[in-house]
């Protein structure tokens, strides 16, 4: 634990604790930043896997968290840190996708085959199966679903990021959800 963190102690309130870690990290405390990393890396990793269509996310995760460290000073606390971080990650991921066109072969094979995402899930595998089903959604539906339902973007923001209309975004979201709902039958 850093000197400052050990002096002020840790809050039991997760939001307050996170705000304190953000402030500490902005002041250069790497230990606090590591706590933020640990708290958010799994969700950011899933976001990266879904948006890049590959499980090989090490490189882009590094890029996202290094960029987050560099940009911490611009975080104004107007939204939750997680929201800010997700939006930063989406920007990095979309840029990465544009320049690298990272597409794993097995994900390409799944493209445009909604049926493969429809296999019903059972028992404790439910969540893992839904994760897989999200991976198997056609890319456009997956992008919209992830940006809207996981990250929290509005349709007009999604439209701007993906170069589509808000109506298309709504339609893709509907079809993605209608596909995924079968796992809750």
């Amino acid at each position, binding site marked *: 634990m*850093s*000197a*400052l963190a050990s*002096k*002020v*102690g840790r809050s039991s309130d997760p939001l*307050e604790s996170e*705000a*304190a870690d*953000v*402030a500490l990290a*902005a*002041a*250069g*405390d*790497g*230990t*606090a*930043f*590591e706590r933020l*990393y*640990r708290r958010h*890396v*799994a*969700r*950011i*990793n*899933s*976001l990266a*896997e879904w948006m890049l269509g590959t*499980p090989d*996310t*090490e490189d882009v*995760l*590094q890029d996202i*968290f*290094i960029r987050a*460290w*560099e940009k911490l*000073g*611009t*975080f*104004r*606390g107007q939204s939750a840190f997680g929201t800010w971080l997700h939006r930063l990650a989406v920007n990095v991921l979309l840029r990465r996708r544009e320049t690298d066109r990272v597409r794993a072969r097995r994900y390409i094979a799944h493209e445009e085959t909604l049926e493969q995402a429809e296999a019903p899930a059972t028992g404790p595998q439910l969540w893992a199966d*839904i*994760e897989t089903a999200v991976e198997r959604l056609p890319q456009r539906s997956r992008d919209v*679903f992830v940006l809207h*339902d*996981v990250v929290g973007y509005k349709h007009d923001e999604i439209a701007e990021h993906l170069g589509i209309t808000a109506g298309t975004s*709504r*339609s893709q*979201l*509907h079809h993605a*959800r*209608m596909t*995924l*709902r*079968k796992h*809750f*039958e």
Partner: protein
Amino acid sequence: MTDHWTERLSAYVDGELDREERGALEVHLTSCEACATAVAQLRQVVGWAHGYEGKPPKVDVWDAVARGIREREGSREESRHPPKRSGERVRRFVFTVPQLLAAGIALALFSGTAVGVALRAVGAGSGRTVVTDPALLPDEIPLGESFDIDGNDPWTVAVVTQLEEQYAEAIADLESLLREGQDKLDSATLRVIEENLRTIDEAVEQATVALRRDPAAVYLSELISVNLRRKLELLRDAAALVASET
């Protein structure tokens, strides 16, 4: 289930239908089991997405992230300053004034008690401070660990002075407004405002004294900026309250 409502179910779940369409759909749902089931399942999908905690990466990349930060901060420092003599220590502060203010907003969430504890701990004169320059750290010391560091740094003091100057005029104006309008506030409200102002002033004073003893303690300059901002916000609220009672 392919009736004409099917395409509207997702928008319904998101609350995007207008009142008329929503009402019509809700009537439909009472008689269409398939659509009602679909709505329930769509809500489960949305709930799953909102609560999704993610999947850890195959390989933990923290070490690479920390190394990357050190390298970038180091190369940036080298390009900004000429090489120092061997053994000469430099200190680089990571804050600009806007960054201090940004950190201040987040730090405002600290309780007053926590701030007091921090101040007492710093005020005890440990002679140690948080290292903010990754380039200065030996490999075995992680970022953020306390580390002995020599010398004073006028930069921090200058930033604090600048912050105080930025706030001074606005604070003086608002204090004047509050003095003129304090008879419009009930005594309990006024007492709470005065107690909070006094607490903030004490925190600023303590941090300023501690900063003089340890000018390299970046956190103290943050505390001052946080408390000046809190004071400004409190005075603004109080002035607004006075105005609303006028």
